[in-house]
């Protein structure tokens, strides 16, 4: 494949362009999170970042011209995301019933987010041996990343984690955000019973 822009005079080339647009749309739809140019290039089978950027921008444009509840946006760092327009979120939120994680792994994730960067051994100490399984799951889902080896393994949340919960991916900024929100929740929950669940 060359890095040339598709020429509009060739009908075959135009068909290929439409197919590549569909591939990008498919990737953004399924991922449900921001994707960078490298990933988008990978999906579309193109090796030219320039071309992929152009295609992605075409998609953004295409969606903005439709009468649609869905939008495709360009984010900082040349990342693109498909999402529901904010106007509609409130009206259909109740239809989302499937949690991202069950209670156990969610607790482990919550702890890592709050204490990161944190030693894996520390997470296991606080969350128990069964949380090895959680870490594997969280890593598979690209919510956390592990660095280092053996007992020196350090855990952090990922860009995807930040994107998913709408947090800043800078660790210090994120922790400030988490602490502020956490305090608000604690305040409102002082009179409620502590959660009884302790299983995974």
């Amino acid at each position, binding site marked *: 494949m060359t890095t040339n822009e598709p020429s509009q005079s060739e009908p075959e080339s135009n068909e290929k362009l439409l197919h590549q647009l569909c591939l990008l749309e498919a990737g953004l739809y399924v991922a449900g999170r921001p994707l960078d140019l490298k990933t988008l290039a990978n999906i579309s089978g193109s090796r030219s970042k320039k071309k992929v950027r152009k295609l992605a921008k075409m998609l953004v444009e295409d969606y903005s011209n439709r009468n649609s509840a869905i939008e495709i946006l360009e984010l900082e760092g040349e990342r693109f995301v498909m999402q529901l327009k904010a106007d509609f979120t409130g009206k259909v939120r109740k239809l989302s019933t499937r949690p991202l994680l069950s209670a156990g792994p*969610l607790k482990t994730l919550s702890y890592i987010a709050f*204490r990161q*960067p*944190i030693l894996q051994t520390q997470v296991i100490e*606080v969350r128990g041996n069964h949380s090895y399984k959680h870490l594997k799951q969280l890593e598979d889902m690209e919510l956390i990343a592990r660095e280092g080896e053996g007992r020196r393994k350090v855990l952090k949340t990922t860009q995807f984690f930040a994107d*998913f*919960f709408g947090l800043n991916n800078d660790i210090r900024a994120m922790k400030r955000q988490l602490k502020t929100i956490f305090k608000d929740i604690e305040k409102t929950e002082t009179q409620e019973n502590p959660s009884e669940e*302790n299983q995974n």
Partner: protein
Amino acid sequence: MVQKTKKPFYFQPPLSILFEIHRLEKIMPWDVNIAYLLTMFLEEMELQGKVDFRASGVALDSSSTIYLKKTKLLLKLEEPPPPPKAVSQFVPPPMFLPLRYELSSTTLDNLLNVLDEVLRAETIRPPRMPEPILPTPEIIPPLDLYLLQIEDNMKTLFAQLRQLVGTGELLTFSKLVAGLDKIEAVKTFIILLFLAQRGKIGLWQEEEMEELYITVIGDPVFDDKRTEPI
């Protein structure tokens, strides 16, 4: 004569099996009990009191043909039987799940709601922060002479700061390093950090802004020596 026109007894079933020679090839040999048929044939002939050699010959010939067929089949059975055919179970092709995006019901609130409980478990073992992973000493570039002269540089910069602003006033970092090249700006920044650590100046940065603000808070005494005339 009536008797002469009557078919001979052996043309009646079941004896007819032995005498319809053209059908012999088609019959299943295992369905035929040769001994029974031949006995019946002999008994009937005896009853009639007339020995028919021709019919006897045909019966014998047919019997031997049938017997030969049985033998052949038996020999055939001695060959190794074909492997039993596996019960053909149709296993349908895999059905790939249609891919659908689904908004997760997990929100930041859910994440933080469980945090409280998790942190309670932590009280037993307070968190240990990972030690920063520093490069091994040999990778650290040789210390710049500039950093070795840190004390002198601190004094010079502090004097410079005091000239630019009075105590409590704000000075932006960009203004301080205006006109300097990058490496000099970095060196200035490092000295600022040392001054801040001594409590001589305050450094302050707004969350969203890149600009760094400097305030001079220390008295104009540096290592018990005045850096400027009163």
